[in-house]
């Protein structure tokens, strides 16, 4: 088996505080193969955005990587200096954000922002930049490239802005695209367009994708594998079909039970009581224990280790939901 494109191992991210470091992300490990779509789902504050921002070292404020490694192409990005990171950002790894309006510079034309990466990395000769810009604009489905290239972000619609942001991320042909809630700010019909675009681009360009979202529906439609994060840790990872068919971690089960799937009479919702813990006051054992229906005394003593599951992935739980029956032909 070839080595993965990206391997994150035991990543921990923290913010130094008055009484020691507050851990935002703890012991996160996952790999992404070339061309694969990997989803990270979780609720606000679970550390999903922090995790992917750490990959290209865009952590905000005083947050920093406290331990672990991020291997991309044989280099450890967790320890890389700015000089090593600069050629990778944009050219090796691209990123798109939730709100395209704040991600775009309001005083530069869209065309200038798309070609900025080409100028910076110097990978394409200057006379070919315009052709490359138009090529990538057609690729992301921006109509009339000449007119849109001369427009400013405020002149575009929400969907066009997100397409422009994707064009900026793709112009230097990255092998990995990080997408942080790329469709959350968009209307549902536009969201469907952008998700289809991301899937098409991935297949056409052979690019890997890490998609961070709170929406299990978005992951179901886009990703090959998925990690569920809760309170700074990955609590379950599985191939996409299995997470919906046979979730093991009680939090995954609860999350799936919180999505409306029909009328209340036929499919009543069973929400999880309570709230996730404050990162500064996480319980000593499993962070989900105080809200968990399967909680036992052992859960409060130490965080459960990782149990690998047949068919890939695994979960961190002492008392998981039953897996797919042995009678079932595939795992």
């Amino acid at each position, binding site marked *: 088996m070839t080595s993965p494109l990206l391997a994150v191992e035991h990543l921990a991210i923290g913010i130094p505080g008055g009484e020691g470091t507050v851990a935002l992300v703890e012991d996160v490990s996952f790999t992404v193969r070339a061309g694969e779509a990997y989803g990270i789902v979780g*609720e*606000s504050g679970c550390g999903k955005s922090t995790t992917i921002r750490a990959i290209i070292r865009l952590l905000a404020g005083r947050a920093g990587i406290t331990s672990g490694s991020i291997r991309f192409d044989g280099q450890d990005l967790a320890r890389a200096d700015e000089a090593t990171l600069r050629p990778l950002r944009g050219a090796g790894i691209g990123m798109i954000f939730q709100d395209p309006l704040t991600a775009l510079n309001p005083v530069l034309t869209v065309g200038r922002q798309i070609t900025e990466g080409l100028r910076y990395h110097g990978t394409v000769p200057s006379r070919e930049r315009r052709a490359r810009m138009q090529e990538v604009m057609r690729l992301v489905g921006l109509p009339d490239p000449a007119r849109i290239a001369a427009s400013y972000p405020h002149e575009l*619609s*929400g*969907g*066009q802005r997100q397409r422009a942001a994707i064009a900026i991320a793709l112009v230097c042909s990255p092998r990995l695209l990080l997408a942080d809630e790329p469709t959350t700010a968009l*209307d*549902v*019909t*536009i*969201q*469907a*367009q952008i*998700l*289809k675009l991301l899937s098409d681009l991935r297949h056409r360009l052979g690019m890997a994708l890490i998609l961070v979202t*709170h*929406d*299990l*529906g*978005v992951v*179901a*439609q*886009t990703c090959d594998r998925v990690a569920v994060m809760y309170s700074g840790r990955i609590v379950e990872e599985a191939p*996409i*079909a299995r997470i*919906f068919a046979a979730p093991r971690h009680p939090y995954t089960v*609860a*999350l*799936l*039970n*919180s*999505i*409306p*799937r*029909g*009328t*209340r009479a036929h*499919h*009543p*919702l*069973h*929400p*999880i*009581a309570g*709230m996730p813990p404050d990162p500064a006051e996480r319980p000593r054992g499993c962070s989900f224990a105080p809200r968990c229906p399967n909680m036992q005394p052992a859960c409060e003593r130490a965080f459960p280790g990782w149990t690998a599951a047949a068919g890939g992935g695994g979960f961190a739980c002492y008392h998981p939901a039953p897996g797919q029956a042995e009678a079932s032909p595939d795992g």
Partner: protein
Amino acid sequence: MADRPLLAVEALDKYFPLRRSLVAGMMGHPRRRVQAAKEVSFAIGKGESFGLVGESGCGKTTLGRLVLGLLPPDGGVIRFDGQDITKVEPTARRALRRQMQMVFQDPYSSLNPRIRIGSAIGEPIRLHGIVPPDEVAGEVARLLERVGLPASAASRYPSELSGGQRQRVGIARALSVRPKLLVADEAVSGLDVSVRAQVLNLLADLRRDLGLTLMFISHDLGVIEYLCETVGVMYLGTMVEYGPTSAVFARPAHPYTRALLASIPRADPSAVGQETPLAGEPPSPVDPPSGCPFRTRCPSARPLCETPPPRVMLPGGHWAVCHFATEVVRNGR
């Protein structure tokens, strides 16, 4: 009288004029306006839960504000309990306001950060004299417990509560004056999945226990299906389809509703979108297309669609404003 709906909206129009430059005014260019509601008609029965769905800019929030009397309409009639609220005296309006309350999307900006939760909920109770002054505190405690918060939350400030807790406070405050109609505008949109499910169940329980009538405005079809018995679909200021939620979801009669339903990313990897997503984006409400407003994006638009479409009545109180509504239902496309 039992059949009279609590709320009946007939041919409601609302336009927002756009600023016109001085030059354009002198040259006699007509004043341009945004069409936020055009000939909107629907009714909500007593105790019914009605969902209003559409994408940003379709006019669903404006419609909610018109119903509450927060905006004056440019035409049409809004009857609340038989009374035309567009023509009501200012003194009678206050009594009417007590009967209809709103829950807002953002519980952060709809609560005053410097006022304790107890005062925020107690203020409308005092203003409307719901209970004698010495019983207000008890009433606040009762309301807090009704929405699933401890009575001790009364002494907290909004900043001490989470988003879900604040939304519960918003609901308690709306309920404090014992309204008949609750208008909830994207009331669960800012909440996380697990908290959203808690608030949805709370709203459903309150409606059942208090006999509330609910107008639930949302862009989220899954939430509407869960909570609402009837649904109206808005596009560019017009209601393009209306009917029992079960009928509209199972047999959509307007191509826009069909496209909207097909666009929901379903939490089921085996149901990966077979349908191609709707192309393009909604046109500007300043310059809506002639005839059917959806025809510029409709996959099955024909020349006839340039003329205003009729309201086609279907079985079970279900209707759609489309020339080909019966065909859409029959062919499933």
